[in-house]
């Protein structure tokens, strides 16, 4: 529920915006707004909307206000030996509301699920100022149409998320991270071929390129990061299995946290997704595209189980940079793959096709935000199209 001091304030503010057709842009920690997304409107500050609403450790669920930071959720749940097994790319000051709105995830997703798999319930204020609830606080729920899934990844264009209930996990008894490097002369296929037959069930398995490895303080070369969890016997057996892949070194326990936090708001970032059997082709294609466009030291990471390659570039003011963003955004992914841009320079967004162009999506947006006041400029329209009506 909305706390007393906000009860009526946020809904009234949105209802008023709806009535006057005044654009609003909800703002939590502002970690992705600073990524220069072309959004018009007055800032609707939800950053003070923080705090845990309900946490019963035995239920393995937590309900928090949307402005609560991932760091606070981590600390509160860690005290009970639990965690939100999500750890999305980005800094831990990011909020749970923004994490859900942007469907941000990270290397744990193939094992523990993406945001859509971990959100149980939401409180959302629609574009007309109506306070609505979807889902609930229990781990299985099929009561009514699944508006939770609709709001996950909608970037706040269908409503302002004010409260989130997430599924938690108990932390594993053992949680260890290993770094594996192979023969630098071998192809990725040859190096990683044994993976398919090894008795491995890692919590996370991420391939990173040499610049990324260096950034994390690891030895140069393409590197495999593996996070193993479970009881001691299970982790030990998997650790032994890794020897088939090359040199194995125990890494600091915070390596994956540092990998995630390496995405800062000013960086350029994109996800390229394709069938996992094409993973290495996707990796090489993205790598080559970066080279061709003179992208300076691209940081590549890949989730093998998911067929997902993520690329990050330093901010334009920090290094020589891509000159033709139109061509770069068009050719980064191989044919048949899908690119989701997370962060781009402001003037590059106009090259990115709208994610909400189909009839159903357009009508859903009109249904829940009829005056089109929420996050105008996101998902649905290119930057150039919205400047006139702001």
């Amino acid at each position, binding site marked *: 529920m909305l706390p007393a001091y906000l009860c009526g304030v946020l809904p009234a503010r949105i209802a008023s915006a709806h009535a006057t057709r005044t654009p609003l842009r909800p703002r939590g920690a502002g970690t992705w707004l600073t990524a220069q997304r072309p959004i018009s409107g007055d800032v609707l500050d939800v950053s003070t909307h923080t705090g845990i609403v309900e946490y019963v450790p*035995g*239920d*393995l669920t937590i309900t928090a206000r949307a402005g609560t930071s991932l760091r606070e959720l981590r600390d509160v749940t860690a005290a009970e*030996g639990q965690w939100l097994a999500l750890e999305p790319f980005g800094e831990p000051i990011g909020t749970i509301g923004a994490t859900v709105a942007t*469907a941000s995830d990270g290397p744990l997703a193939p094992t523990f*699920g993406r945001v859509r*798999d971990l959100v149980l319930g939401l409180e959302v204020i629609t574009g007309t100022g*109506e*306070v*609505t*609830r*979807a889902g*609930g606080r*229990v*781990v*299985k*729920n*099929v*009561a*009514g*149409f*699944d*508006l939770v*899934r*609709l709001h996950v*990844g*909608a970037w706040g264009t*269908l409503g302002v998320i004010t409260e989130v209930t997430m599924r938690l*996990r*108990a*932390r*594993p*008894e053992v949680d260890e991270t290993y770094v594996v490097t192979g023969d630098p002369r071998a192809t990725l296929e040859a190096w990683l071929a044994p993976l398919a037959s090894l*008795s*491995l*069930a890692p919590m996370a398995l991420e391939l990173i390129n040499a610049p990324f490895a260096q950034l994390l303080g690891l030895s140069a070369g393409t590197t495999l990061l593996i996070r193993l969890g479970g*009881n001691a016997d*299970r982790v*030990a*057996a*998997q650790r032994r299995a890794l020897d088939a892949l090359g040199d194995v070194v125990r890494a600091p326990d915070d390596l994956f946290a540092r990998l995630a936090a390496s995405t800062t708001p000013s960086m350029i970032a994109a996800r390229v*997704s*394709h*069938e*996992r*059997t094409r993973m290495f082709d996707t990796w090489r294609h993205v790598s080559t595209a970066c080279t061709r466009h003179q992208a300076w030291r691209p940081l590549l990471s890949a989730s093998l189980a998911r*067929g*997902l390659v993520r690329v990050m570039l330093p901010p334009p003011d920090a290094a020589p940079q891509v000159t033709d963003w139109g061509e770069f955004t068009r050719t980064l992914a191989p044919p*048949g*793959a*899908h690119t*989701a841009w997370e962060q781009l320079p402001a003037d590059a967004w106009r090259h990115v096709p709208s*994610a909400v162009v189909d009839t*159903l*999506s357009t*009508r*859903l947006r009109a*249904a*829940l935000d009829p005056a089109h006041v929420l996050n105008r400029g996101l*998902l649905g329209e290119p930057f150039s199209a919205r400047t006139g009506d702001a």
Partner: protein
Amino acid sequence: MPARVATSAFDALRAASPEPHGDAALVQALRAIVGERWVKVRPSELTAYDSDALPGYRAQPSLVVLPGNRDQIVAVVRLLAERGLPFVPRGAGTGLSGGSLADDAVIIGLNRLTRIHAIDAGNGIAHVEPGVVNAVLQRAVAPFGLHYAPDPSSQSACTIGGNVAENAGGPHCLKYGVTLNHIVAVTVCLPNGELVQLGSPTSELDGYDLCGLFIGSEGCFGIATDVWVRLLPVAPSVRTLLADFPSLTDAARAVSAIIATGIVPAALEMMDRATIRAVEASIYAAGYPTDVDAVLLAEVDGLDAGLDTDAEVIAQCCRAHGARSVRIAREPADRARLWQGRKKAFGALGRIAPHLVVQDAVVPRTRLPDVLTTIQAIGARHDVAVCNVFHAGDGNLHPNISYDASDAEQSARVHAAMSEIMQACIDVGGTITGEHGVGLDKLGYMNALFDDASLAAMCAVREVFDPERRANPGKVVPVHSCREWSGRPSHAAAH
């Protein structure tokens, strides 16, 4: 068989006429699309479609049409759209919420669409038609060392299309998740006959998660003509444990303790004394002790290394919470025997009385002991025998009542007890359905769970897919939450 319950004044007319549907032109047009034999209009044929697995609810469709492929689905839906006629998609009819009942609407049966188009083992994706039976898909992918995780108890009969419509679960959802977590894309024939693909079989998209929104929409957003499901490797090793408890409350506490260890069992199922006795008195007898209040069936799977340790930790949790004995099975035959009683529990309960109402609600896991006690008290107060066989690890209760639906007084007591049970679950922060759907049966509880604004948002979303509200009308969201419904309201008669 359930007693025939008249649901509409037209029943008598139908019974009197060998070809009751007045619109001969419609029947002819549908037959031109799907073939003569695939349009059913005779009362004797329609009877097979007048109920699902929920007792006490019957409704006669105006006719049943059984398309044989995607193109025929589209042609049928377009024809109905042109005529402004409501329709209800239907799979195997194993649903437990009355969701596939059609009151004077056209049923579009999807049982003929049983092709598995492709199994892509490398990418772990299968492309199937909606009428493929869950267990048939499991058998088809098994040679690849893969499985499709959602395993509802009706999996030998229920279809993937029905599973998508209801967002079906099953015993192994505790670890692996429900249908939502295992569908990557669907092709949907919208109620206006337009085909759209939601999600992607090959990559993760950004934009609105329309595939996720569609799953669990109970046939109100259109018909899935193609489904791409995710396949997972079969776990290399499995251990199944059976613990018996003199106290149901202690068994529930053991569940909480197991969850708190951090081990995520593949399944954690509980049966109470009444269920155990019904199972052991049936041909499905699994050797469960009949002098205890509860048995807990737990399964852990995954890599062999460390699995025995996990099984032993679970066994210790059970013993620490009063388990009288704990058995651990490693071999497939032994495990299958422990599972048999659970899998066939509903069948065994069906022997006790003419009808069995299988309910579905979810409570926060820590509230299980209280709620189980409350349910027993409610049952006693209404003089009905409630038994429980359920997914304890998820807090997903299935309170069941065996009764005779032809006895009006008994039916009324059953319904009163069920209403109180639902309210008790809502009161502790739970929900009215975890995997069976709202359908008709839970419609009356939606107002207790959601406020008007939330229901109106659901209606608004439904209207995007189906502005005329012709797809499975009268289900899921109470009619009064939307603008006035133009059609004749569906209604249920329980006797």
